[in-house]
């Protein structure tokens, strides 16, 4: 079993997670996660569906509270913080939700301007300019007045991304940015993540089960398996790993042998 577990001891990490444990109901979701994310790097967290990747991501921005363990964001321990104190942390960290989570009663422009307006920006001219600027970056020019319900999946993701980066956070968390999208749109999202990192130097954490997505964007990859970090290393280390579990996951091989009877059920 090749467990490559890096743990830096300096305090410069953008995000640090120590011994994170989370149970939901009687189910153990996370069983002790240790993770460091350096400023400016892109970490992909891969793993099977239902393996706790999204739960881990939600802990990093305080949307869920750990049962045990600590989380630091830029040196600040957020574990015991109340919602109001977390607000200052959340201005530094943006998140793109799996379902985009756009406000469905607002137009695209209002959605994107929302964080600015909440931060106290009132001038409609400035708001309009910032929104159209970011829509250009997202290749969504001219869609300002549409309602979220009239957007395709890929467009929703891009609007969601625009909304989470308009306040220029130093870290962005992506929850399954390419799931449910066709390969061409997936590729454009991947390029967007890359571009954001190169242009603004943001730290990114991408949760995904799409290997292409992971290899395309990541500087490092962590493989989450049964509530623990099973592997942590560069994309090349992952690619050339001889571990059976990792190889099976990368090539999408199911563990169980499929008999003809099994085709009746879930495979």
């Amino acid at each position, binding site marked *: 079993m090749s467990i490559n577990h890096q743990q830096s001891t300096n305090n410069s990490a953008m995000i640090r997670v120590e011994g994170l444990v989370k149970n939901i109901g009687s189910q153990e979701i996370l069983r002790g996660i240790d993770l460091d994310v350096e400023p400016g790097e892109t970490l992909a967290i891969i793993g099977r569906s239902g393996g706790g990747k999204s739960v881990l991501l939600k802990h990093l921005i305080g949307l869920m509270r750990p049962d045990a363990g600590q989380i630091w964001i830029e040196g600040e321990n957020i574990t015991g913080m109340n919602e109001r104190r*977390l607000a200052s942390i*959340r201005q530094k960290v943006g998140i793109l*939700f799996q379902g985009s989570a756009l*406000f469905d009663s607002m137009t695209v422009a209002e959605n994107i301007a929302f964080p600015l307006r909440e931060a106290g920006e009132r001038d409609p001219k400035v708001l309009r300019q910032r929104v159209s600027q970011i829509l250009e970056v997202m290749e969504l020019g001219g869609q300002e007045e549409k309602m979220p319900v009239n957007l395709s999946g890929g467009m929703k993701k891009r609007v969601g991304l625009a909304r989470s980066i308009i306040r220029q956070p130093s870290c962005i968390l992506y929850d399954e940015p390419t799931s449910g999208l066709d390969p061409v749109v997936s590729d454009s999202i991947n390029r967007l993540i890359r571009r954001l990192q190169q242009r603004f130097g943001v730290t990114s954490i991408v949760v995904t089960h799409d290997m292409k997505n992971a290899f395309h964007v990541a500087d490092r990859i962590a493989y989450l398996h049964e509530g623990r970090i099973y592997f942590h290393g560069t994309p090349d280390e992952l690619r050339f790993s001889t571990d059976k579990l990792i190889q099976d996951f990368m090539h999408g091989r199911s563990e169980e042998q499929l008999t003809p009877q099994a085709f009746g059920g879930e495979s």
Partner: protein
Amino acid sequence: MFVRFFSALGRPLIRFVQYLGEVVMLGADTFRSLFTHRLRWKLFLNQVVEIGLLSQLVVVITGGFTGAVFSAQTYFQFHKIGMGSAVGAVVSVALMRELGPVLTALMVTGRVGAAMSAEIGTMKVTEQIDALRALAVYPTDYLVVPRALAMMVSMPLLVAECIAVGIGVGYLVAIFLLEVNGTYYMANMVRWTRNRDIIMGLSKAFCFGILIVFISCHKGLTAREGAVGVGRATTEAVVNASLAVLISNFFLTMTLNIIYPAGYQ
């Protein structure tokens, strides 16, 4: 055997107490936020329109027909003992102290409480509440405070409107349909109706508004499991808020009657 009996008895009780605690905590959180954080005026005014302005038709119809039927029924009884002109006093005091606040609250629960829990519940299950939190906006500030404040402002006004319309329609029914003497009707009504009856009705309205808004918002904020969950949250919000209005009405009546006693004194 005993253990099982008591745990079967205790679990719903604990759940109930926990539920009450959550609603009270939401209320406390809202009042704290109301006094310590800036109000979102636009959202507040939107809610005043939604809760107050657009509920008027329902409330006017409720008040009008209640006043009409109450006036008629009272007349049928009072007429036998030659007290037809006392109908006005009975209608006005009953509407102010009980019927106006309670019926308005029940109608507002159905119209506004349901909409609140459905809207907030849908936001909850589609991760929009998480999105608010992730964008550094505290959901109580953004969703509950404007609604609670709008409810506190709107409910007394709606109840006042309901009472006024009820009295007006009761008058018309008594004078034009039942041929009561209008002068005696008005004189008796004014004589037997006190300021404290009005204050009691409006105090109840305020309390009911608070109950409805926190019960409905709490159900929305704790909705789970998709469309079914939102449906369940909405139903429970309406049922719980209606029961809360009816139950608290009794205790409010008993308490407020000490401060604002009924009758001509």
